[in-house]
Every structure is written in structure tokens, then in C-alpha cells.
């Protein structure tokens, strides 16, 4: 933008007038350039950008189940384990297992869960997930997931960033880097969490070496939903507006003096911040939601209130154009007392998750929203006793576990892949987390081999040096 066009814009809008009218104009954000990344068009680093190819899904909701849910007890029935229950497996079967805590001599633990064939598709789902059973025809269950990592932080890193080592950008950061965001007054990549903190901490939504603009913004459960969203104690919205107004008058003078577009860009950031101060509380205010919707998600009831609130927020954000919403629920790391731990997590999340799919669908949003559910790896068919007198649990297992996808571009009502009858490894159609990442990017309109960023002399990508789009998942 030249100074002349800037001045022209400026004279169209009297700053004092806009004080009365409120600051909620979009003008500057679209007129100014940004940090100089050539791929980013004018309009800011988060302005929506065209995909590589037509997208099947505009938004992603990643229901991240941190800590690794047990696939044998939820999605992948293994009746064959019953005859081994309480016995160790022959060493020939277990010698290649990579285990975190237990020795390969540990004893087999069959699942006590009952599975039903659900919906028209007949997908088998555990009795711990009765609500999901109801929407079984929406989901594409992948029973043959694989990863390279057997510990939480590296595993979560692998799932989110494609590498076990921290420091790479995560999937949400790649997507907002590639596509920008439709939302003009909320961040493009928002993170919600419930339960405990996840092993990966903020590296699960880091922008790595991408500009920090693309990092996930945590929406917090207490205090300000976005850090520093509310004015300092005693500063009214009017005072805030007056301050930003004055700031703009001063900055503008400097813009004319120095000609540096960064100043205009900073002014736009302040305006967006000011709008965010209004729009984030509006996002969080469920007053306009019918009671029936809140009931559907289990809001106002325990134990579903917290996770239900996050799921409803996810839908509201997608409606408002937020590109990526990640819901982290921790922890599913049931080394001990599996039955109880798993039951609690299922009771907390099952109803809200099903509600989210149903709600998105009836609003016509499911077609353009990709929903993914899963953890960083799975759990062993061998039982673990961590401590004297403990109830049994399961150890980490990377070779064959379950995740599911639903929504935009996904062929629901099917099961892809399988594991062997002892749940030791994926048997048919193994899907590596890099394949999952390639598929997610593909559905969002991006080619995982072309979405790159040069860092230390190398073009990095989410899928590292592998990954393929899994066509069986696609509608």
C-alpha cells in the first residue's frame, strides 16, 4: 500500500467518528501487508488463502485424547484374547514388542467390555460409548493406526508435528499457515483442554519454526478465556476505546513520517484485539443456545459439563470461521485401574462427542468440518500391574490402535484396517500417523508434499519424508 492510498482510506474515515461508531471496522486489516512472507497475500498472515486443490472440509476439530485410550476396550474387540487371559504370550510373539514399562512376560488381559454392532454399518463399538454407538454411521473407524513412538511426549509430538522431537510446527499451525482463517475476530487455531495437562504441553499446538502467529491459542477454563482478554482492573470499554483511538492517532503520524507498513499492521492488530475483546465473550455466552442443545451436550450436568462446554464451543467457533479447534482431554493413560479410569473418561466425553457430530450435522456444518478422534498411540493386550495391590491396567502400544474420522470428505459408516487377533500389530491396511496427517491436509485442500517451510536450509513439511493420502477413508 502506498502512502497515498493509506491517506485516502484515512480521510474516508474520521477517527473521531469511528470512536462514536465503535472500532469494529475491518478496513485496515485488509489493506495492510504483513510480515513479508511472500506466500501470504495482503490482508494479514491469517487472511483466508486459497487451497492447493478444492477442499472437502473447511475446518478441523481434533478431539485429541491424550494419554492413549485403550482400543481393545473401545473400538477393536478381541474375543481371541479370552483364551489367553491370565497367561503370558509365547516369547516368539512378543519379542519384537516395544513396551514402555512392562516386560514381554506380562500376562494377557482380555477386555471385559461388551461390543454391539451399531447402525446400518454394523460397526462394533464398546458399551462404554453408548452415545457414539448412536452415530456409528457417521464415523470412519480406523483400527490399524501405527506410530513410531512408545512414550507420551514423543508420541504426541509425532501425532501433532510428524516428528518425535519437539520444535516442529503442529498440524493446526500448518493448516493456518497454509489456509489462513475465515474468522476476522477470533484466532485461527484455538486449543481447549479438559482433565489434566497433556504430556506434550504447549508443544502440542506450537508453531515450531513457523511465525508464532500460527501457534494455537489456548482458550482457558478459568480467568480470561484468552490471556489478557479483559481490560485491566478499573478500565472500562469506553476507556479502552479512547486509548486505542489515541494510540491510532499517534501511530498514524509515525506511519506518515516513516512510511513503514508495519505500523499500519500493528494498528490493525490493536483493532482486532479490541474486537476480540467483544467477540470472545460473545463466543462463550451460551444464552442464545436453546436448552435442548445444552442438554444434548450434557452442559450443566456432571460429569459431562466441562467437555460438553468445550464441544459446544468448538461448534460455535467453527460457525464463526475458526480454522482449527483442538480439544485436548487428558489423560487416558490407564496403566492401572483401567476399567474405572476408562469408564470415567468415557462418561465424561462420550455424550458430548456424539452431540457434537449430531449438532454439526443438523446445522449442515458436518459436511464442511472434519472431525478427528484419537490419542498418540494405543494400549497393550498385556496387563500391567504397576504397584503392589493395584488393579490391572495396560501399557503403551504403538503398533496397532484405533482412531476415527467424521465429516467433510470422509466416508462414514465404515471400518478401515484391522489388527491381528492378539492385538499385537496392525494386520490389514496399516495407517501411519503420517498417512493420517497427509489425509487431513488433503481433505482441507492442501498437498502435504507441497505445504513446506524452509528452515535451516531444508524445506520441512508436516509429514516429514513420508505419508500418503489414505483413499479408503475418503467419500
Amino acid at each position, binding site marked *: 500500500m502506498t502512502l497515498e492510498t493509506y491517506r485516502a482510506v484515512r480521510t474516508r474515515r474520521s477517527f473521531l467518528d469511528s470512536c462514536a461508531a465503535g472500532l469494529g471496522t475491518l478496513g485496515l486489516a485488509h489493506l495492510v501487508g*504483513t*510480515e513479508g512472507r511472500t506466500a501470504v497475500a495482503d490482508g494479514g498472515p491469517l487472511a483466508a488463502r486459497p487451497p492447493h486443490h478444492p477442499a472437502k472440509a473447511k475446518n478441523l476439530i481434533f478431539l485429541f485424547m491424550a494419554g492413549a485410550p485403550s482400543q481393545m476396550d473401545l473400538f477393536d474387540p478381541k474375543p481371541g484374547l479370552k483364551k489367553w487371559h491370565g497367561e503370558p504370550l509365547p516369547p516368539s510373539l512378543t519379542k519384537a514388542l516395544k513396551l*514402555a514399562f512392562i516386560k514381554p*512376560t*506380562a500376562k494377557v488381559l482380555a477386555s471385559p467390555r461388551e461390543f454391539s454392532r451399531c447402525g446400518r454399518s454394523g460397526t462394533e463399538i464398546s458399551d462404554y460409548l453408548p452415545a457414539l454407538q448412536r452415530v456409528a454411521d457417521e464415523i470412519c473407524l480406523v483400527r490399524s493406526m501405527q506410530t513410531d513412538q*512408545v*512414550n507420551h*511426549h*514423543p508420541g504426541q509430538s509425532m501425532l501433532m508435528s510428524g516428528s518425535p522431537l*519437539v*520444535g516442529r510446527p503442529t498440524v493446526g499451525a500448518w493448516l493456518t499457515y497454509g489456509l489462513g482463517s475465515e474468522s476476522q475476530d477470533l*484466532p485461527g487455531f484455538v486449543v481447549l483442554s479438559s482433565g*489434566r*495437562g*497433556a*504430556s506434550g*504441553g*504447549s508443544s502440542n499446538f506450537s508453531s515450531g*519454526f513457523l*511465525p*508464532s502467529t500460527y501457534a494455537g491459542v489456548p482458550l*482457558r477454563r*478459568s*480467568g480470561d478465556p*484468552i*490471556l*489478557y*482478554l*479483559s481490560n*485491566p*482492573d*478499573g*478500565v472500562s470499554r*469506553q*476507556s479502552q476505546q479512547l*486509548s486505542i483511538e*489515541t494510540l491510532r492517532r*499517534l*501511530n498514524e503520524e*509515525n506511519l506518515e*513520517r*516513516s*512510511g513503514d507498513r*508495519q505500523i499500519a499492521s*500493528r*494498528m490493525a*492488530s*490493536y483493532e482486532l*484485539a*479490541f474486537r*476480540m475483546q467483544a467477540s470472545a465473550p460473545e463466543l462463550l455466552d451460551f444464552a442464545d443456545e436453546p436448552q435442548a442443545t445444552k442438554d444434548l451436550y450434557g452442559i450443566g450436568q456432571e460429569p459431562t459439563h466441562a467437555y460438553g462446554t468445550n464441544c459446544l464451543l468448538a461448534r460455535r467457533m467453527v460457525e464463526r470461521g475458526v480454522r482449527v479447534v483442538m480439544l485436548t482431554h487428558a489423560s487416558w493413560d490407564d496403566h492401572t485401574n483401567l476399567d474405572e479410569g476408562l469408564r470415567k473418561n468415557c462418561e465424561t466425553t462420550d455424550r458430548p462427542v456424539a452431540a457434537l457430530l449430531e449438532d454439526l450435522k443438523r446445522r449442515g456444518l458436518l459436511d464442511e468440518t472434519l472431525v478427528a478422534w484419537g490419542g498418540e498411540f494405543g494400549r497393550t493386550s498385556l496387563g500391567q*500391574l*504397576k*504397584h503392589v*495391590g493395584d488393579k490391572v491396567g495396560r*501399557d503403551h502400544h504403538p503398533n496397532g490402535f484405533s482412531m476415527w474420522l467424521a465429516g467433510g470428505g470422509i466416508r462414514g459408516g465404515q471400518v478401515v484396517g484391522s489388527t491381528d487377533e492378539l492385538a499385537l500389530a496392525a494386520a490389514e491396511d496399516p495407517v501411519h500417523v503420517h498417512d493420517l496427517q497427509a489425509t487431513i491436509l488433503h481433505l482441507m485442500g492442501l498437498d502435504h508434499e507441497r505445504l513446506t517451510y*524452509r528452515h*535451516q*536450509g*531444508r524445506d520441512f513439511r508436516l509429514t516429514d519424508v513420508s505419508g500418503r493420502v489414505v483413499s479408503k477413508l475418503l467419500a
Partner: protein
Amino acid sequence: MNGRALALSALMAVLAVQAPAAVSFSEDIGPLLAQHCVICHGEALQQNGLRLDRREDALRGGHSGPAIVPGVPAASALLKRLEGADGLARMPPGGPLAASDIGKFRSWIDAGARWEAAAAEGDLARDAGHWAFRPIRGPAVPEVRDRKWVRNPIDSFVLARLEREGLAPSPEAAAHTLLRRTFLDLTGLPPAPADLAAGSDLDGLVDRLLDSEQFGERWASLWLDQVRYADSDGYEKDSVRPHAWRYRHWVIQALNRDMPFDRFTLDQIAGDLAPGSTVEQLVATGFYRNTLKNREGGVNVEEFRFEEVADRASTVATVWLGLSLECARCHDHKYDPITQADHYRMLAFFNELDEVDIDAPLPGETGPFLAAKPEFDRQLEEVYGRFRVKELMGPWEEKMLWASRNPGAEHEWDTSWDILDLYVDDGQRILQTPPSARLWREDLVLTEWFLRNYSRVTSKEEYEATGFRDAVEEVHALVDEFPDVSRARAVQTAARPPRSHVHPSGAWDDLGAEVSAGVPASLPPLRGSGPSPTRLDLARWLVSRENPLTARVAVNRVWQEYFGRGLVSTSDNFGLRGDPPSHPGLLDWLATEFIESGWSVKHVHRLIATSATYRQSSRLRADLGERDPGNRLLGRQVRLRLPAETLRDASLSVAGLLYPKVGGRSVRPRQPQGVAELGYGSSVKWAESRGRDRYRRGLYIHFQRTTPYPFLANFDLQERNVARCARNRSNTPLQALNLLNDPVFFEMARGLAYRILRETPRQSFDARLDRAFGLCLARRPTSSERVAMLDYFVRQRALLEEDEETARRWFPFEPAGAGDPTAPAAWVGIGRILLNMDEFVTRE
């Protein structure tokens, strides 16, 4: 364009490519091969089996067949590679050759690929090849027309280039801009009011600021980014590293003393091996301890040890050589002349490292420590006796040792043994050492771990009956109360270093051929002192006169901080995919100055900060804007948003709140509830610092890797996990929210108001505004700024008049002389606006 013109121009293009003029090997082909090919296909390295610096090798070709078939361009793989034909990967990897150069190859091959005798013996690589690998030569300082502009030779290089382009440099920036720029760049703090009056001896100012202790604080951050310093381990547990700060302390002091960079290098790379090494040299090896550590239960210790070794090697390569080594982990480097074997030879230098924590007392600490030690021992014994600690610990130790010999027998003992090494550095070795042979600190950490983890092998009831929870509390209380000496994290050479191997697939457990330590073959040879080179040899090699990279890389990173980008804009990558320097002569001249000054870092700073190039105005110029939008020609200065730490420091400083203590432990300023709790299992504690420690400079803020301090993260210091050679300068709404609304910044605005009112008692609005602008921007307000601020002042007071209670919350101090609280409150508002002004957050 009509059809005939199109055909004509196509014809001309063909003619241009198939230039009939005889192509000379020595003038055309040889230099092209030397420049683009022999670095990977030459004497030192034959990627894919191909060597292009000798005719017979070139004709024979590589693994995929003959490269050149004389007389038959179409059958010559070399040409196909250059053209990217037949779907083959296009060469060279740094970017295709110009069509005219490819045309020369075609003509040359067509004409029989004659190779002149003089060049036939394989010396193309010498004196040619990739610019960064050529020896550094002190180039002649170029002549310029406008000699008056030149303040030192930097300016001659810059001006000569501008004059060649027919451009003039920008005028010198305004005095106040220069003053603020120089202060912020050299010390990370803005000028104080007294400095504004001090006059215009900028060269003298540069000397004074280089001598100030704040110089080391400002520039330590750049180094800490590169060596990925943090106060916690990273990964899931992200345990706090209580002694990490001692290394940071060393860096600050080294910079302040202008420790020569060769020594700075040697101490960090091999301080433990230096003859007669001192405690401070051991502290310097804390460099290696900045590697992340994965203490997650169940990790394979050897796997992550391998990752640590790899991380250390690649950090050394990035920081000193500007080369990315990790690309060669799984295969030969695709772009740079680094083979997979080179990669593992570099790793072998660091495979021998053992981690060790040492006593590293600061002056004044040892006396009180020794005086109190006997009493501490007595009280500790008393606690141990009262809780029967050693009685239970003896059998526990025996069973642990038994479990270590009988894996798989008892699960809970297995786990205890396995995780001991994860949670206690060197824990297994300590346990294997008989109690009487342990150092007192070793016994203390093992006992403490036993007290907390005995529960793993007992029932809950039994554990509760021991009272160990209380015992731990008592031990901690004793340790806290007892005057201790500072500790540091260091390394030493393992007694029996593991063998080093190539890992063909890159996986930690995939062992190939054994390798010994060495440097990449394409770089100058390392002359070791013995049969196999040591880390000490590596350190000396890094700063040897023959090494073409270290000095260039180092001066470029300093330059980058002063001009927003390096002379080589890819400051982390001097390899083939990096950008070539904008001013190669200047880069080499600076590198030569650096070396010849005895590796004086301050000398480089002084040269840059006193140059006319540095002093230019940062205003955009229409002529430059079109010709050189990226300012590669340096025809002006640039406006740079302040780095996170500097922004905090400048704000604290103008507010009069900064506690300027230099060095020492990390601090935890106020941060919102819930930030630390995002860490794993809510295990990260943020115990807010008390009193003046909350007002220390940004580089002292405790850096918790998984939950970094939000302000730092918002302003682009979000992670320190891998070597980072340049920070982003992003501009986001979250930054706006942070500066506007963070209570820490509101407190600064309040401090600024308090300061203005206190320092200008009973003075007019204008006089006070002058003071405020002077403090924050080192200048007086313009008349329109005065109008804007007065306008604000009046309207803000009007808003506050409706609610005097709120006004008192804004400014909860006794107003200076006046009863009306709205005026001082409105000054808080003015302070807040100033701290958010683009000019304030920017170095102009």
C-alpha cells in the same frame, strides 16, 4: 505479440541457447563445474559415486552410469540433470543454472567435451566452489566517490555497492533516534534523561555502552537462543533445572569481559579437557547440558541418550558452522557436502560425554557454606535417625541391585530401578556405589529419592507408617535453610566411552560401521594432537585460521541484530541452499577484523555501531522502495520491533521499576493463574518471585519449556528446543492484548505516571508530557501529538470523573499535592498509551 513475432522470438531464444561461439573448458565449463558441482562431486566427496573434477572420472560417471558422452549431449546424464529432463532430480540442488550456462554444457559436449590438460588433474575445487567454504581473505577496501560519508571501512563496502547501483545512502537519523537506537541495540535499555542531555559524542557513547554490564545482558539472549538455554528439561516431565542459570551467568560475564571468541568457543566445547581447567571452564561446558532431557517413565534411556548426542552435534554445527548436520542422519546430505559418515563422525565427538553437576561457588559463598556444614550434617543425621531412614534404605538398596540383575522378576522393582536413572541424574551409578564411597550430595539425592519412592515397593499402609512424607519435608526444609554454594551443570569424559557407529537408517539402535571422531571431509582437515581427535582438537579446529565458516557465521549473526537481517540472510544456513552474502567483501573483511582483533566480539560491535551505515535514517525512500524493497543494499536503516526481553526491559526502565541486578538465578514474575497448569499433570509450579526480583530483566525470567512465560511467547520467544539463530518479529493481536491488559504492564504504566508526577512536581501538562515523551521516546512530542494527548487527557478525566473510586484504583497513591484523583489516573492512561505506541515497541 503476433504469431510471427512469437516464432521469431522463439527462434532467437533457441539461437541464444545454442550459441555457436566455441565454448572453452578453462573459461566456461571449468569455472561452472567448480562453482556448482565439485563440492559434492569432487576430491573430498563423490556423492552418488560421481566425480566431476577429472575428465576420466567424469566420463566414467557415477552409480547411475556415464555422466558425459562426448559428442552426444542427448546421452549425457550430466546435461539431463542440469535440465531436469526425464524426471531426474535437477542439479545443482541450490537452483538450476541459467539457460545460457546449460547451453554452454550442451555445446561443449557436442564439440567432444575437450578437457584441457592444465585442469585435468583435479584441482578445480581449490579456490573455487561454494563461497562459504572458500578461505577467508581480508579483501581490499573498495574506493568510493563520496569519501566524506565513510566513517569506517564498513561504509566503503556498503557505499561502493550503492554507488555502483547509482544510489545514495540515507541521511543520518535524527539525534534522538540515534541515541535511542544505540542504547537499545547495545544494552537493551533506553537512554535515561541524563543521557539525552549528554551531547552528541556517539563514538564515545558506543565505548561507554560496550563497557557497561548491560551489554552482556542484552547480547546474552542471542547466544542463549542459539544454544537453546532453558530452566527446565523439556518433554513430558519438564523438570526444573535449578542450576541452569549458572551457565547463563557465565555467558553474561564472558560477553562483558569481551572474552575472545576462540576462548569462548574452547571453554564451551572442551572446557573440561583444557589443561588445568578451572571451575569457570567447567561451568562453560554447561553448553552441552542445554539439551532437552526426556524423563518420561518408560523411555528407553539409550534411545534418548543417542538423541542427546545427535542434538549436541547438530547444535555445534548450526551455531559455529552455520550448517545443518541432521539432514545427513539417515542419508548423505541432499544439498550440502556432508555424508552420512561425516554426520556420525561429528556425533562421535560427543558420544563420550557424561553429565555431572558441580559446585561452582560465586564469590562470598564458600565461607558461610563451610561454617554451617557440620551443623547441617548433624541435623540431617538426626532426621534420618528419627525416621529410621537408613535402616530401611539398606535392604531397599540391596533389593534394587538384585532387581537390576533379575529383570522381569518383580515388576514394581523393575520399574523402580528403571526410572531411578530417569529422575536422578546418574542415580543407578550412585546406588551401585557403596554408601561410604558416595559424595555427600550423591547420598542426599539418593536418600531423598528413596524417601519419596519407597511407596512404589510397599503397600500404602506400610508407606504411611514410615512417616517418610514428613521426613522429606524436613530434609527439604534443612536444605533450604542451609547456606549452600551455587552449583553448575557440566560434563566430563566418560571413563569408558561407548563406541560410535554409523546408524544407517538413522535409528538409535541400527548400528552400522564403527566410526571415530572427525569433521566433514569437505571442510579443512582437523589436525589432532593424537591418533584420534578430541573435543579439544575440535574446539581448536572451529576457531582455526583455516576454518572458513566460524568467523563468517559469528559476525553475520551480530550484523543481523543491527540491521534486521544478516549479510547472509539465512544466518542459520551457510550451506548450498543458503543465500549468498549481499556484500561478500564486507562479510570477509569483518570476519578478518574479528579474527585479527584476537576474536574480540566487542570490536565487531564497535565497528558496526560507529559506522555511517548504522547511523542512517530508517525512513523508507521512494527510490529505494522500488529498487531494493528488502534493503539488501543497505541504503537505509530499518525499523525493528524490539525483542521480547528488550521490550520488557525498556518498559520497566522508563517506568522506573527495573531492578538492575546483573546475573544470578532465574526469577518468576507475575503470570496469570492457569498458565503453568497447562503443563503435564499440572505438575509445573510457578512460585511468583517476591519483592524486587519481579522487576528484573527479561533474560532472567525462568524459562519453562512446556509452559513458557506468556509475554515471552507472545513476542516470539516461544521455544528454546533447537538452535535458533534468528527470531521472528511477528505482529499479532495477542501482543496488543498483552501490552494493553497484562497487569504487569498496567503496573508499569502506573509506575510511569508516578514517576512523571514525582519528577515534575507542580508543572504544566506540557512540561509533564515532555518528560513522558523524553523518557519513552527520547524526544519531545510534536504539536499534533500534544493535541492528541491533551484530547485524551481531557476525555479520560471526563470518563473518570463519573467514578472517582475507579480513578483511585488506577492510581492508588497519594496524588502529588492535588485532591482530584482523575488527573493522576489520566497520567496512568497516558503512560499506557506511550508503552503501546509503535515507536516505543520499535527500534527506529
